[in-house]
Every structure is written in structure tokens, then in C-alpha cells.
């Protein structure tokens, strides 16, 4: 596939992610921090986010499975997830953390379990979409195109 077509696809895909609320402006900010001296910055930060999120989701699953649920600990995990998702612009993941914290405060296990499901879902969605996006980027670079396409959107 030729470069221009790939770039168009990349832009359309990214625009859709913004439109559908999967990503917010913080994601664009990350591209502003990427340059020749740090060409893989976005992929690296997002990878950290994936690792961090998976760890937190596992911790949350375990914590909600305890006979006596430690809501303070759960709230702390959710707060972390909310923070890191916000830092990379994973808008829907961040939003899914908000009702979660409310249920923690209300010490409502069922509510928390439902929220955890929601969080997992949103996380998997954005993970797949970002992986697709980065795959596209790789193809663009391989075809000799520019990677800092998000500039076009700024």
C-alpha cells in the first residue's frame, strides 16, 4: 500500500478514535513530546500504560475476590488507573474509573464488580485500537513516510 494511502488511513483512524471519545487531547500532547531524539516516545509510554493497567486490573480482580473487601485499597488502585489513563489520553478508560470510585466510597461490592467489568472492557478496546494504530505507523515508516502525523491534527 502506498504511503499516502497509509497516512490517510492513519489520520482517519485517529480522527475516529477522538470522535468516539477513546482518546482526548492529552494523546496529541504526547506526540508533541516525540522527536528525532526520542522517536519512540509515544509507543514507549503507551506500553508502560498497558503494563501498568494490566497489573492494576489483576490487583483489582483479586481484591474484589477477597472475603472481606478492602475498599480503600481498591480505591487507591482505581485512582492510579485513572491517573495513568488520563496521562496518555485514554479518555474512556479514565471515565470508567469515576463511578468505580463512587462505589468504593459507598462500599458497594456489586457496583465495584460491574465497574471493573466496564474498566476491563474499555481497556481492552483502547489496547486493540492503539496497537492497530502503532502497526499502521510502522507500515508508514517502512514505506518511507513520516510518523509525526498527529501534527497535522493539531
Amino acid at each position, binding site marked *: 500500500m502506498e504511503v499516502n494511502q497509509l497516512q490517510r488511513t492513519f489520520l482517519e483512524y485517529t480522527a475516529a478514535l477522538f470522535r468516539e471519545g477513546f482518546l482526548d*487531547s492529552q494523546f496529541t500532547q504526547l506526540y*508533541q*513530546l516525540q522527536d528525532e531524539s526520542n522517536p519512540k516516545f509515544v509507543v514507549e*509510554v503507551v506500553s508502560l500504560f498497558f503494563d*501498568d493497567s494490566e497489573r492494576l486490573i489483576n490487583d483489582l480482580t483479586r481484591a474484589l475476590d477477597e472475603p472481606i473487601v478492602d475498599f480503600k485499597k481498591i480505591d487507591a488502585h482505581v485512582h492510579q488507573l*485513572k*491517573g495513568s489513563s488520563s*496521562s496518555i489520553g485514554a479518555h474512556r478508560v479514565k471515565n470508567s474509573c469515576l463511578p468505580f470510585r463512587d462505589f468504593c466510597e459507598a462500599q458497594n461490592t456489586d457496583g465495584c464488580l460491574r465497574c471493573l467489568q466496564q474498566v476491563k472492557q474499555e481497556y481492552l478496546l483502547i489496547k486493540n485500537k492503539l496497537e492497530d494504530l502503532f502497526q499502521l505507523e510502522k507500515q508508514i515508516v517502512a514505506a518511507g513516510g513520516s510518523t509525526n502525523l498527529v501534527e497535522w491534527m493539531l
Partner: protein
Amino acid sequence: MGSECSSVVAEELHVLAVDDCLVDRKVIERLLKISSCKVTAVESGTRALQYLGLDGEKSSVGFDGLKVNLIMTDYSMPGMTGYELLKKIKSSSNLREIPVVIMSSEKVLARIDRCLEEGAEEFLVKPVKLSDVKRLRDIILRGDENDEKKGSRKRKLQDLSPTSSLARDLTPLKPASAASKQSRLKRPRLKNTD
């Protein structure tokens, strides 16, 4: 902040960033490096104090001999919060001159007031943006040289430095009223540009 800033010769600030979240540490580190700052990123208040020399003997010089010009710390951290770290720094005779900026994802007015009252330079709402860092850098570099170009905003920042009597007068002992809030010229922009 006096003599600290006049000794920043190469216009390159050394910033100590404190955040328990790895993703945030990576982002803030990049934000600072791209703004021509040297960065040391640590994961807790305890590590930050260790880096600064707990008893302040080395006077804002870290273990690797680099003077710290600015501390940026997350507010909500397990163990020692950013607020507690701020208090420890401001109560140390050797470290109190270092400007401290608090970062938080939660815009709680009482929290902001508390931090500013304790001597925080600024309260930044997360996620921190490049423009925030650039603005901070300018503020710290210009220091308190009476730079007329910066004009009234700078003078007001000086007037509201924690050590000035004017700041004491403005710091309410009762819960902050709307009037005293308006006089807080150091109040940071709370808008989130999403």
C-alpha cells in the same frame, strides 16, 4: 528564592520530579527534558528527601552533586503525600529556598489553598502540559531579578512569597472567603483545556 536563581548560570534547571506513577514519571521527565531541563525522577517523598540529603546538610545538592532548582511533586502518593513532602522541605533551613510545585489530578480548592499556604510555588492540574512546564521554567529562571518586562505579575509573585508579611496578611486563618481567594494572585489556572 533570591540567590538560588542568580547562580543558575547555564539557564538549565535541574528539576527533581516526584511521582509514584511510572507513566506520569516518564511523561513529566520528557516534558522537562524537551524544555531543556535536567531531570531526576523519583517514586516517593522518601526517596526525594534521600536525594536532597535528609538533614539538608548538602543544601539542595543531590547525591550526584547536582543542585536542585525546582521540585515538582504529585500530591496523592502512598506513604508520604506531596503535601507532607512540601512541609518537610519548607521546614528545612537548607531546602526551603527550593521552589516546590504540586501536581494533582483533583482540583480541590481546599487542597490548593493548603499547598499554597504551605509555600508551594504553583499547583498544577494533571495532566501537566508542555505550556505549564514552559511557564514554570520562565518563572524560576527569571527568579526575583526585578525584571520590568515581566512587570506587575512578577512583583505580585514576589509579594506573595511565603516569607513576606503581605502573604501572612493575605493568608486567612479562617476558611478562605471569596474575597481572600481573589487576592491570591498565585492561584493557578484551573481550567482544563480538554
